């Protein structure tokens, strides 16, 4: 019963954990913690909304919790001057989920968490600020930094993809 539920939902939940983690190992640690919580709190599920959505929420919370615990002394962010690179037309279709995962995992922890929470999970800056114990301004600036870095990386990648395809 529990195992069936796990088998059915784990692949999707691992993607959620991967987005928040630096690598697969860290992601699977979070996935394990998350499922232990899911099965321990399963009677707290009130039946409103999709069950998978509830599991996802538990996973996201576990990932954020794990990020906060691991928060290294100052969470040093590499100061790259991210800039908008001009480019002529993107062909996103060649960019797969794995590519984006690679890019997102390269981000500094703080950027990654804010980007995930705001863009994918749809939290507001206020909620992010409260959850992470930072100011709303910090949340906003981290998001714009994260976006800039991601764009840069994607354009690089796109260039490589394009080159390999063309050549």
């Amino acid at each position: 019963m529990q195992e069936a539920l796990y088998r059915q939902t784990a692949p999707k939940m691992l993607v959620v954990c991967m987005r928040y983690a630096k690598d697969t190992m860290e992601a699977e640690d979070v996935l394990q913690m998350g499922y232990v919580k899911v099965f321990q709190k399963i009677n707290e599920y009130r039946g409103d909304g999709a069950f998978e959505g509830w599991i996802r929420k538990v996973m996201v919370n576990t990932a954020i919790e794990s990020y906060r615990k691991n928060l290294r002394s100052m969470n040093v962010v590499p100061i790259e001057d991210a800039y908008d690179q001009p480019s002529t037309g993107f062909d996103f279709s060649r960019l797969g989920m794995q590519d984006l995962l690679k890019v997102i995992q390269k981000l500094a922890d703080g950027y990654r968490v804010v980007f995930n929470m705001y863009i994918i999970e749809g939290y507001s800056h206020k909620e992010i600020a409260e959850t992470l114990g930072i100011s709303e301004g910090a949340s906003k600036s981290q998001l714009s930094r994260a976006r800039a870095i991601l764009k840069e990386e994607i354009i690089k990648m796109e260039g490589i993809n394009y080159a390999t395809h063309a050549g």
Partner: protein
Amino acid sequence: MQHMQDKELDQLFKDRFEAAEIQPSANLWNSISEELSVKPRRSLPVYWMAAAVAVIAVTVALLMPKTEKMRLQAPMASIETTPDTAVVTAKTSGQLNYVNTSATEKVQSTPLIIAPRIKLSKREKELAALQPNATTDRPVIKQPEVVKELVKVEPKEETPKQEVMMAKADITTDNTDTSVENEHQENKGIRNMGDLVNFVVNKVDKREKKFIQFDTDDDNSSLVSINIGFIKFNKKSDK
């Protein structure tokens, strides 16, 4: 379009991650189910505690008013004397009954058939089940010691010159109170709700000051001590 727009970027990530799946390591489920099977053991004592608390609440509600009434009506002396006689009569009547019934059984049974013997032993069991009231009841254990105490105290007062007797008497009189009390706490079986609660609490709580204890000397239980962290109550230490 020269620049990648924020919206574009956001949408790209949303789309790619929405229904994406990655298979976790094959052994991950095993670690999860292992972790799940360990946790429930920890929470078990909590259920025991909850059960004990429920039993205690009912017991206190049912038995507290009764004991108060008993104490108001019955003076201490009569309590001490009545059990002795009661036991004697109970014991003798029990034995008489047993003899009578076993005798009649024998008369009824035919010596050549084995069946009556089984019937007889069955009868003995039934009688044995009825016996404890007379044999294992508290006053039987207590009785000799009370008598000893009385016997040894009297010589001490009347003939103080007998030094040996006096020394003995001192030791015994000092110890009788505590030893009687200890025997009470250890030797008695479960006779009422107070005993049941004490039994459960003893199983769960190994501390010296149990989180709840009942005095079950009289037939009804009275609360002796509570120790639930912030609430501490001890009848004995109050005295």
